């Protein structure tokens, strides 16, 4: 895979380049800030670009740069890396795009397998969210927090949590030890209960389902 990356921490940047190369990926460019990366990618293409959220141009150059890159090369995947897994940044990332996009903790991509799996999933159009964040966002509703998801069953919440991690139907089925057919049924129920009707594309509805859950927890957006 052709990968570009921008990260202002030299030590981390160099480590990431070495790991990517060990995984067999081609590094088309590597910069310490967003502006240089935009310049670099104006004459080259990459399958996925990896961006540090907190880098120049300050304060969150990764997000600004991502918006520019998505406009330049809409098909290029974007992977955000950060020291923090915050729903605030996830919201902003999903505003950049809801396809071929990912958000992971820096220390969680430190293996060839995980890094390659993350990049593959993004390249194929999925949303990849750091599992710890996905879990926190869709954890069991407590007290009066139920809101829009009050109608969901425990099993449907499990499915929604795995959807928030960007898992495919088959992936969800494997995790929950049920058939893909059963997962489809749960997802159809979730869409129905959250009033997400069939006029949107399947992938888009998945994202909307997750966002509906987030909105039920946060009076934002």
């Amino acid at each position, binding site marked *: 895979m052709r990968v570009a990356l921008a990260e202002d*921490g030299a030590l981390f940047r160099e*480590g990431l380049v070495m790991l990517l190369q060990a995984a067999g990926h081609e590094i088309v460019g590597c910069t310490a800030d967003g502006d240089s990366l935009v310049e670099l990618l104006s004459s080259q293409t990459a399958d996925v670009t990896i961006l540090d959220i907190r880098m120049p141009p300050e304060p969150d150059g990764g997000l600004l740069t991502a918006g520019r890159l998505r406009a330049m090369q809409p098909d290029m995947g974007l992977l955000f890396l950060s020291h923090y897994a915050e729903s605030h940044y996830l919201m902003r990332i999903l505003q950049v795009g809801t396809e071929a996009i990912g958000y992971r903790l820096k220390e*969680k991509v430190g293996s060839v397998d995980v890094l390659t799996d993350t990049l593959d999933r993004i390249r194929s159009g999925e949303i990849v969210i750091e599992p710890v964040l996905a879990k926190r966002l869709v954890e069991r509703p407590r007290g009066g927090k139920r809101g829009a998801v009050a109608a969901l069953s425990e099993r449907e919440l499990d499915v929604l949590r795995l959807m928030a991690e960007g898992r495919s139907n088959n992936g969800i089925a494997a995790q929950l030890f049920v058939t893909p057919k059963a997962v489809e049924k749960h997802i159809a129920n979730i869409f129905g209960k959250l009033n997400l009707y069939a006029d949107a594309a399947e992938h888009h509805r998945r994202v909307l389902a997750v966002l509906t859950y987030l909105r039920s927890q946060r009076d934002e957006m």
Partner: protein
Amino acid sequence: MTLDPVAWRPGKVSGNVEQSRPTASAEHDHWLRRRLLQRQLHDGAALRISALTLQFGLFRHQVLETDRHLQESVDGLQDQLHAVLQDLRDVAGQIYPPLLDQAGLGPALREMASRAPVTVRVDAPATRFEPAVEAIAYFAVTECLDALDGEGPPVDVLVRCDGEVLLVTMTGVDVRRARMMDEQVRRMGGTVDTPGGTEIGTIIARIPCE
């Protein structure tokens, strides 16, 4: 390392211009130092440890496929580094919340609210304020939310800038928590009031902001 170089000053401060000015100035310095420490943690130790996980990943890749024991040892070390980083994130959050630094009071309060055991509705402007003002407002709300358990009523946090004063109104909270935030707010020359309610009620913090 001492994280609180500003000694507590006894005596009346609120409303006393002569005393509140140097105190407020020391308070500003204090929060700037805390913010700097948090940034140093992020740019220093945290980034070094994250880079170390990549080096372990590279090492693991070079270990022979057949050496399962060594591979599992490396996995274990990476998990431990993740735990170390989680500890550092907790510490950084207590020194000066990174999201408060990067995105401001509204996003930081909403993030905190999303982790609270009861519904917390946050209404805050996107405006940025001085680091000391944002931090004192943030930790004032933390003081209240920390006391909540899963059974309580919903809490409303309203943040408004009224001229030169930042008003933080918390409704549905234990008014006895007002004592906990009073000292810090007073050091900035502000006030904390509890208009009505002896247990669950409203707390209003007024923090001078320029």
